[in-house]
């Protein structure tokens, strides 16, 4: 029993370290992915609770590799479930099922700069996987391999995904510029 308690205490302290190290990354991901602080907080909380349950196994299987992609994978799955749940709820109003654009204002983030606001608005119009890849790359500074692990794709598929996401965003932003 004392051996179990010792191992558990050790695991708890390692988890606390993981948590401190990645809290900001996870929150940034959640905020840009979900689009509002309230749901982002819930997503981060749920992610860490689920990560805690599987931490020992993840450590064993990670083979010394960083656990950030694993944490983001959990957040990615929870976010997908969040949207599935929202879209299936029969009582969901039309307003609630509007795209993310309605959920948070970009003014706070871009300090009134039109070009940045257009990029963020364009980002919200991309498909989920493309948007997520761009958030991981540009908000969290993850490389292709990390993003691939977080999204459960190959490195090659991730490279293509990011390339297409940037191209699509370019054209969305260009259309927005032409339109006014």
């Amino acid at each position, binding site marked *: *029993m004392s051996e*179990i*308690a010792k191992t*558990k205490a050790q695991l*708890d302290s390692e*988890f606390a370290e993981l*948590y401190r190290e990645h*809290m*900001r*990354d996870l*929150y*940034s991901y959640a*905020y*840009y992915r979900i689009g509002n*602080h309230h749901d982002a*907080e819930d997503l*981060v*909380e749920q992610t*860490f*609770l689920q990560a*805690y349950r599987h931490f020992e196994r993840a450590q064993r299987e990670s083979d010394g590799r960083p656990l950030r992609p694993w944490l983001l994978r959990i957040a990615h799955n929870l976010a997908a479930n969040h949207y599935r749940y929202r879209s299936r709820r029969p009582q969901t109003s039309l307003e609630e099922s509007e795209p993310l654009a309605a959920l948070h204002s970009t003014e706070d*983030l*871009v300090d009134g700069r039109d*070009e*940045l606001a257009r*990029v*963020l608005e364009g*980002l919200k119009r991309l498909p989920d996987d493309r948007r997520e890849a*761009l*958030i991981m*790359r*540009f*908000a*969290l500074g993850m490389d292709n391999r990390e993003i691939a692990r977080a999204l459960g794709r190959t490195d090659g598929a991730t490279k293509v995904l990011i390339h297409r996401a*940037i*191209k699509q*965003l*370019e054209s969305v*932003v*260009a259309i927005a*510029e032409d339109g006014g």
Partner: protein
Amino acid sequence: MSGSANVESLLREALSPVDPPPDLASRVTSRLQSISDYAADELESWELAAMRDPRNWLRPAIALLGGGAAGAGLVLLRAHQRHAKHADRGSEATPPGVDES
């Protein structure tokens, strides 16, 4: 706006890291702490509760029997060794071919 490089640099600027609200860290920590405590309590109470169920006595009983058998085997082995030692000493005292009587 022109080119991917421009979009990329704008993205880097627009997607600046967002600090979590200060109370989120303490909330998550206390949730994790309560889960951790609960798990430890659960484990202890599970062990106690498990021993109240006769179906869970089989394994300790087997272990006890196994331990008992191993112990008995050890005693027999020691006795055998002692006996062999005595026999050796006896044979040293009376060389082959000499009648003790």
